[in-house]
Protein backbone atom coordinates (compact mmCIF):
# COMPACT_ATOMS: atom_id res chain seq x y z
CA UNK A 1 0.00 0.00 0.00
CA UNK A 2 1.21 3.44 -0.86
CA UNK A 3 -0.75 5.19 1.85
CA UNK A 4 0.08 5.02 5.50
CA UNK A 5 -2.27 3.83 8.15
CA UNK A 6 -2.40 6.09 11.18
CA UNK A 7 -2.92 4.80 14.68
CA UNK A 8 -6.56 5.91 14.75
CA UNK A 9 -7.31 4.11 11.52
CA UNK A 10 -5.65 0.96 12.83
CA UNK A 11 -7.76 1.20 16.00
CA UNK A 12 -10.85 1.54 13.83
CA UNK A 13 -9.92 -1.44 11.66
CA UNK A 14 -9.23 -3.62 14.71
CA UNK A 15 -12.54 -2.61 16.31
CA UNK A 16 -14.35 -3.34 13.08
CA UNK A 17 -12.68 -6.73 12.73
CA UNK A 18 -13.47 -7.73 16.32
CA UNK A 19 -17.05 -6.41 16.11
CA UNK A 20 -17.85 -8.78 13.24
CA UNK A 21 -17.65 -11.72 15.63
CA UNK A 22 -20.59 -11.82 17.99
CA UNK A 23 -18.87 -14.27 20.32
CA UNK A 24 -15.57 -12.47 20.22
CA UNK A 25 -12.36 -13.44 18.52
CA UNK A 26 -8.76 -14.16 19.44
CA UNK A 27 -5.38 -12.57 18.78
CA UNK A 28 -4.15 -14.75 15.98
CA UNK A 29 -7.37 -14.47 14.02
CA UNK A 30 -7.56 -10.71 14.53
CA UNK A 31 -4.03 -10.39 13.19
CA UNK A 32 -4.82 -12.51 10.15
CA UNK A 33 -8.02 -10.57 9.44
CA UNK A 34 -6.33 -7.20 9.78
CA UNK A 35 -3.44 -8.34 7.62
CA UNK A 36 -5.87 -9.24 4.90
CA UNK A 37 -6.72 -5.54 4.63
CA UNK A 38 -3.54 -3.71 5.51
CA UNK A 39 0.06 -4.73 5.86
CA UNK A 40 1.05 -4.61 9.48
CA UNK A 41 3.68 -6.62 11.24
CA UNK A 42 2.48 -9.28 13.66
CA UNK A 43 3.98 -7.53 16.64
CA UNK A 44 1.95 -4.40 15.99
CA UNK A 45 -1.39 -5.66 17.10
CA UNK A 46 -0.74 -6.69 20.66
CA UNK A 47 -0.15 -3.14 21.91
CA UNK A 48 -3.20 -1.96 19.98
CA UNK A 49 -5.41 -4.66 21.50
CA UNK A 50 -4.01 -4.01 24.96
CA UNK A 51 -4.65 -0.31 24.65
CA UNK A 52 -8.17 -0.76 23.37
CA UNK A 53 -8.74 -3.11 26.27
CA UNK A 54 -7.50 -0.51 28.74
CA UNK A 55 -9.64 2.15 27.10
CA UNK A 56 -12.58 -0.21 27.70
CA UNK A 57 -13.31 -0.49 24.02
CA UNK A 58 -12.55 -4.21 24.18
CA UNK A 59 -13.17 -6.77 26.87
CA UNK A 60 -11.38 -10.06 27.23
CA UNK A 61 -12.44 -13.43 28.49
CA UNK A 62 -10.85 -16.86 28.48
CA UNK A 63 -12.53 -19.84 26.96
CA UNK A 64 -11.48 -23.45 26.78
CA UNK A 65 -10.20 -24.48 23.40
CA UNK A 66 -8.25 -27.61 22.58
CA UNK A 67 -7.52 -28.28 26.20
CA UNK A 68 -6.16 -24.84 26.93
CA UNK A 69 -7.41 -21.39 27.72
CA UNK A 70 -7.66 -19.10 24.78
CA UNK A 71 -8.11 -15.38 25.27
CA UNK A 72 -11.01 -13.86 23.40
CA UNK A 73 -11.61 -10.22 22.61
CA UNK A 74 -15.04 -8.69 22.34
CA UNK A 75 -16.13 -5.12 21.55
CA UNK A 76 -17.82 -3.33 24.44
CA UNK A 77 -20.57 -0.75 24.19
CA UNK A 78 -18.02 1.97 24.49
CA UNK A 79 -16.05 0.28 21.75
CA UNK A 80 -19.10 0.22 19.51
CA UNK A 81 -19.65 3.93 20.11
CA UNK A 82 -16.02 4.57 19.27
CA UNK A 83 -16.29 2.45 16.14
CA UNK A 84 -19.35 4.36 15.00
CA UNK A 85 -17.49 7.60 15.51
CA UNK A 86 -14.65 6.26 13.40
CA UNK A 87 -17.12 5.18 10.72
CA UNK A 88 -18.61 8.66 10.48
CA UNK A 89 -15.18 10.26 10.42
CA UNK A 90 -14.01 7.86 7.77
CA UNK A 91 -17.06 8.51 5.62
CA UNK A 92 -16.47 12.25 5.75
CA UNK A 93 -12.83 11.88 5.05
CA UNK A 94 -13.07 9.37 2.24
CA UNK A 95 -15.90 11.22 0.51
CA UNK A 96 -13.85 14.41 0.48
CA UNK A 97 -10.88 12.56 -0.93
CA UNK A 98 -13.09 10.88 -3.52
CA UNK A 99 -14.49 14.25 -4.48
CA UNK A 100 -11.04 15.55 -5.21
CA UNK A 101 -9.83 12.43 -6.95
CA UNK A 102 -12.87 11.84 -9.11
CA UNK A 103 -13.94 15.41 -9.76
CA UNK A 104 -17.22 15.59 -7.96
CA UNK A 105 -18.35 12.03 -8.65
CA UNK A 106 -18.74 10.96 -5.07
CA UNK A 107 -19.36 7.41 -4.10
Amino acid sequence: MVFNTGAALLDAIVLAVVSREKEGTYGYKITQDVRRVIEVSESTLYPVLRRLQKDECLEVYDRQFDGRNRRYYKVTEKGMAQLNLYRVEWKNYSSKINEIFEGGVTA
Partner: protein
Amino acid sequence: MNRKEFMEKLERLLTGIPVDEREEALQYYTDYFEDAGVEHEAEVISELGSPEKVAATIKADLKGGSSDNGEFTENGYSDSRFEKRENPATRENTYKKAEGGYSYRSTTENDSYGSSSYSDYEDGSEKPRTSKTLKIILVILIGLVVIPFAFPVLIGIVALIIGIVCAAFGLFAGLVVGSVALMLAGVAIFVFGLFKLLVALPTALLTCGSGLIIFVLGLIATVATVRLCMVIYPAMCRIIVNICRWPFHRRVVS
Protein backbone atom coordinates in the same frame (compact mmCIF):
# COMPACT_ATOMS: atom_id res chain seq x y z
CA MET B 1 15.59 -19.60 17.47
CA ASN B 2 12.53 -21.68 18.20
CA ARG B 3 9.32 -20.79 19.94
CA LYS B 4 10.52 -21.82 23.38
CA GLU B 5 13.67 -19.73 23.13
CA PHE B 6 11.69 -16.83 21.78
CA MET B 7 9.22 -16.88 24.65
CA GLU B 8 11.94 -17.31 27.25
CA LYS B 9 13.88 -14.40 25.87
CA LEU B 10 10.74 -12.28 25.72
CA GLU B 11 9.92 -13.15 29.32
CA ARG B 12 13.39 -12.09 30.41
CA LEU B 13 13.15 -8.85 28.46
CA LEU B 14 9.81 -8.00 30.03
CA THR B 15 11.00 -8.21 33.63
CA GLY B 16 10.97 -4.43 33.96
CA ILE B 17 7.21 -4.02 33.53
CA PRO B 18 4.35 -4.70 35.96
CA VAL B 19 3.55 -8.37 36.54
CA ASP B 20 0.02 -8.22 35.10
CA GLU B 21 1.27 -6.53 31.96
CA ARG B 22 3.97 -9.14 31.55
CA GLU B 23 1.58 -12.02 32.02
CA GLU B 24 -0.92 -10.48 29.67
CA ALA B 25 1.68 -10.09 26.95
CA LEU B 26 3.14 -13.57 27.46
CA GLN B 27 -0.33 -15.08 27.43
CA TYR B 28 -1.07 -13.29 24.19
CA TYR B 29 2.05 -14.52 22.44
CA THR B 30 1.66 -18.04 23.84
CA ASP B 31 -1.87 -18.06 22.44
CA TYR B 32 -0.58 -16.64 19.24
CA PHE B 33 1.94 -19.43 18.74
CA GLU B 34 -0.67 -22.03 19.72
CA ASP B 35 -3.17 -20.70 17.23
CA ALA B 36 -0.61 -20.32 14.49
CA GLY B 37 0.24 -23.97 14.94
CA VAL B 38 3.56 -25.75 14.83
CA GLU B 39 3.69 -25.56 11.05
CA HIS B 40 3.71 -21.75 11.13
CA GLU B 41 6.08 -21.44 14.04
CA ALA B 42 9.16 -20.37 12.06
CA GLU B 43 7.07 -18.03 9.96
CA VAL B 44 5.62 -16.32 13.01
CA ILE B 45 9.03 -15.95 14.62
CA SER B 46 10.52 -14.34 11.54
CA GLU B 47 7.48 -12.09 11.17
CA LEU B 48 7.62 -10.97 14.78
CA GLY B 49 11.26 -10.13 14.35
CA SER B 50 13.35 -10.34 17.45
CA PRO B 51 12.08 -10.73 21.04
CA GLU B 52 13.83 -7.40 21.63
CA LYS B 53 11.61 -5.71 19.10
CA VAL B 54 8.45 -7.25 20.50
CA ALA B 55 9.45 -6.27 24.04
CA ALA B 56 10.30 -2.76 22.91
CA THR B 57 6.89 -2.39 21.26
CA ILE B 58 5.13 -3.52 24.44
CA LYS B 59 7.23 -1.34 26.71
CA ALA B 60 6.96 1.70 24.49
CA ASP B 61 3.21 1.45 24.52
CA LEU B 62 3.14 1.09 28.30
CA LYS B 63 5.41 4.05 28.83
CA GLY B 64 3.89 6.44 26.34
CA GLY B 65 0.34 5.18 26.56
CA SER B 66 -0.07 7.06 23.36
CA SER B 67 -1.56 5.98 20.13
CA ASP B 68 0.24 8.14 17.67
CA ASN B 69 3.88 7.29 17.88
CA GLY B 70 4.24 5.27 14.79
CA GLU B 71 2.55 4.63 11.59
CA PHE B 72 1.75 1.80 9.29
CA THR B 73 3.33 1.96 5.93
CA GLU B 74 3.54 -0.45 3.06
CA ASN B 75 6.52 -1.92 4.83
CA GLY B 76 4.43 -2.71 7.84
CA TYR B 77 4.42 -0.83 11.06
CA SER B 78 7.24 1.61 11.23
CA ASP B 79 8.13 3.35 14.38
CA SER B 80 11.19 5.50 14.42
CA ARG B 81 11.92 4.42 17.96
CA PHE B 82 12.95 0.98 16.81
CA GLU B 83 13.67 1.69 13.24
CA LYS B 84 17.12 1.55 11.80
CA ARG B 85 17.23 4.03 9.03
CA GLU B 86 19.00 2.46 6.14
CA ASN B 87 17.93 4.53 3.22
CA PRO B 88 17.61 8.26 3.01
CA ALA B 89 14.02 9.30 3.19
CA THR B 90 12.57 11.63 0.69
CA ARG B 91 10.44 13.24 3.26
CA GLU B 92 10.82 13.79 6.94
CA ASN B 93 8.43 15.17 9.41
CA THR B 94 9.54 16.07 12.83
CA TYR B 95 6.88 16.38 15.42
CA LYS B 96 7.10 17.17 19.02
CA LYS B 97 4.53 15.48 21.10
CA ALA B 98 2.94 18.03 23.34
CA GLU B 99 2.12 16.12 26.48
CA GLY B 100 4.58 13.29 26.11
CA GLY B 101 7.55 15.53 26.35
CA TYR B 102 9.60 13.58 23.89
CA SER B 103 10.07 14.06 20.25
CA TYR B 104 10.10 11.53 17.53
CA ARG B 105 10.41 11.45 13.86
CA SER B 106 8.24 9.72 11.40
CA THR B 107 9.74 8.78 8.15
CA THR B 108 7.84 7.84 5.08
CA GLU B 109 9.21 6.81 1.77
CA ASN B 110 6.20 7.87 -0.15
CA ASP B 111 4.99 11.32 -0.79
CA SER B 112 1.67 10.72 0.80
CA TYR B 113 -0.48 13.12 2.74
CA GLY B 114 1.82 12.92 5.65
CA SER B 115 1.41 10.75 8.61
CA SER B 116 -2.10 10.15 9.76
CA SER B 117 -3.30 13.19 7.93
CA TYR B 118 -7.03 12.77 8.20
CA SER B 119 -7.08 12.50 11.90
CA ASP B 120 -7.56 15.42 14.19
CA TYR B 121 -5.52 14.07 17.04
CA GLU B 122 -2.33 15.38 15.56
CA ASP B 123 -1.35 17.60 18.38
CA GLY B 124 2.25 18.03 17.41
CA SER B 125 3.79 21.29 16.37
CA GLU B 126 6.54 21.57 13.84
CA LYS B 127 10.01 21.75 15.23
CA PRO B 128 12.54 24.03 13.60
CA ARG B 129 14.58 22.13 11.10
CA THR B 130 17.90 22.53 12.81
CA SER B 131 19.96 19.73 14.12
CA LYS B 132 22.72 19.71 16.65
CA THR B 133 25.35 18.76 14.12
CA LEU B 134 24.31 21.61 11.88
CA LYS B 135 24.74 24.03 14.74
CA ILE B 136 28.20 22.70 15.56
CA ILE B 137 29.26 22.96 11.92
CA LEU B 138 27.98 26.53 11.77
CA VAL B 139 29.87 27.48 14.90
CA ILE B 140 33.07 25.98 13.46
CA LEU B 141 32.56 27.82 10.17
CA ILE B 142 31.96 31.12 11.94
CA GLY B 143 35.05 30.46 14.02
CA LEU B 144 37.13 29.78 10.91
CA VAL B 145 35.97 33.02 9.31
CA VAL B 146 36.37 35.14 12.42
CA ILE B 147 39.70 33.80 13.76
CA PRO B 148 41.96 35.45 11.12
CA PHE B 149 40.47 38.84 12.03
CA ALA B 150 39.94 38.21 15.69
CA PHE B 151 43.47 36.99 16.35
CA PRO B 152 45.37 40.20 15.50
CA VAL B 153 42.71 42.27 17.24
CA LEU B 154 43.03 40.07 20.30
CA ILE B 155 46.81 40.38 20.28
CA GLY B 156 46.44 44.16 19.97
CA ILE B 157 44.08 44.31 22.95
CA VAL B 158 46.37 42.14 25.07
CA ALA B 159 49.39 44.25 24.14
CA LEU B 160 47.49 47.44 24.98
CA ILE B 161 46.54 46.10 28.41
CA ILE B 162 50.14 45.04 29.10
CA GLY B 163 51.33 48.50 27.97
CA ILE B 164 48.89 50.32 30.25
CA VAL B 165 49.89 48.13 33.19
CA CYS B 166 53.60 48.73 32.57
CA ALA B 167 52.98 52.48 32.23
CA ALA B 168 51.12 52.55 35.52
CA PHE B 169 53.92 50.61 37.24
CA GLY B 170 56.45 52.92 35.65
CA LEU B 171 54.58 56.06 36.64
CA PHE B 172 54.50 55.18 40.29
CA ALA B 173 58.05 53.84 40.25
CA GLY B 174 59.07 57.11 38.58
CA LEU B 175 57.39 59.12 41.34
CA VAL B 176 59.38 57.19 43.94
CA VAL B 177 62.65 57.64 42.02
CA GLY B 178 61.87 61.34 41.56
CA SER B 179 61.23 61.79 45.28
CA VAL B 180 64.45 59.95 46.19
CA ALA B 181 66.33 62.10 43.66
CA LEU B 182 64.84 65.24 45.24
CA MET B 183 66.03 64.05 48.65
CA LEU B 184 69.51 63.32 47.30
CA ALA B 185 69.59 66.71 45.59
CA GLY B 186 68.73 68.34 48.94
CA VAL B 187 71.64 66.52 50.58
CA ALA B 188 73.97 67.50 47.76
CA ILE B 189 72.96 71.18 48.00
CA PHE B 190 73.41 71.11 51.79
CA VAL B 191 76.92 69.63 51.42
CA PHE B 192 77.73 72.17 48.68
CA GLY B 193 76.58 74.94 51.09
CA LEU B 194 78.93 73.61 53.81
CA PHE B 195 81.89 74.04 51.45
CA LYS B 196 80.83 77.65 50.82
CA LEU B 197 80.71 78.29 54.60
CA LEU B 198 84.32 79.54 54.75
CA VAL B 199 84.12 81.64 51.56
CA ALA B 200 80.82 83.49 51.85
CA LEU B 201 78.74 82.98 54.98
CA PRO B 202 75.36 84.40 53.77
CA THR B 203 75.45 82.45 50.52
CA ALA B 204 76.45 79.33 52.38
CA LEU B 205 73.63 79.66 54.88
CA LEU B 206 71.10 80.23 52.08
CA THR B 207 72.38 77.26 50.15
CA CYS B 208 72.40 75.01 53.22
CA GLY B 209 68.90 76.13 54.17
CA SER B 210 67.52 75.47 50.69
CA GLY B 211 69.33 72.14 50.64
CA LEU B 212 67.70 71.14 53.95
CA ILE B 213 64.25 72.23 52.77
CA ILE B 214 64.62 70.29 49.50
CA PHE B 215 65.90 67.27 51.44
CA VAL B 216 62.92 67.34 53.76
CA LEU B 217 60.48 67.79 50.85
CA GLY B 218 62.17 64.87 49.08
CA LEU B 219 61.94 62.75 52.24
CA ILE B 220 58.23 63.50 52.61
CA ALA B 221 57.63 62.81 48.90
CA THR B 222 59.58 59.53 49.13
CA VAL B 223 57.62 58.33 52.13
CA ALA B 224 54.35 59.35 50.45
CA THR B 225 55.12 57.72 47.11
CA VAL B 226 56.42 54.52 48.73
CA ARG B 227 53.21 54.36 50.75
CA LEU B 228 51.21 55.01 47.59
CA CYS B 229 53.03 52.22 45.77
CA MET B 230 52.43 49.84 48.66
CA VAL B 231 48.71 50.48 48.24
CA ILE B 232 48.56 50.73 44.45
CA TYR B 233 50.75 47.80 43.37
CA PRO B 234 48.88 45.01 45.23
CA ALA B 235 45.58 46.49 44.06
CA MET B 236 46.80 46.51 40.50
CA CYS B 237 48.03 42.92 40.80
CA ARG B 238 44.63 41.86 42.09
CA ILE B 239 42.85 43.59 39.22
CA ILE B 240 45.17 41.99 36.64
CA VAL B 241 44.73 38.54 38.14
CA ASN B 242 40.97 39.02 38.11
CA ILE B 243 41.01 40.11 34.48
CA CYS B 244 43.07 37.06 33.54
CA ARG B 245 40.74 34.75 35.41
CA TRP B 246 37.56 36.31 34.09
CA PRO B 247 37.18 34.31 30.84
CA PHE B 248 37.73 31.00 32.63
CA HIS B 249 35.41 31.99 35.44
CA ARG B 250 32.65 32.85 33.06
CA ARG B 251 32.97 29.56 31.26
CA VAL B 252 32.62 27.71 34.52
CA VAL B 253 29.53 29.67 35.47
CA SER B 254 27.78 29.26 32.15
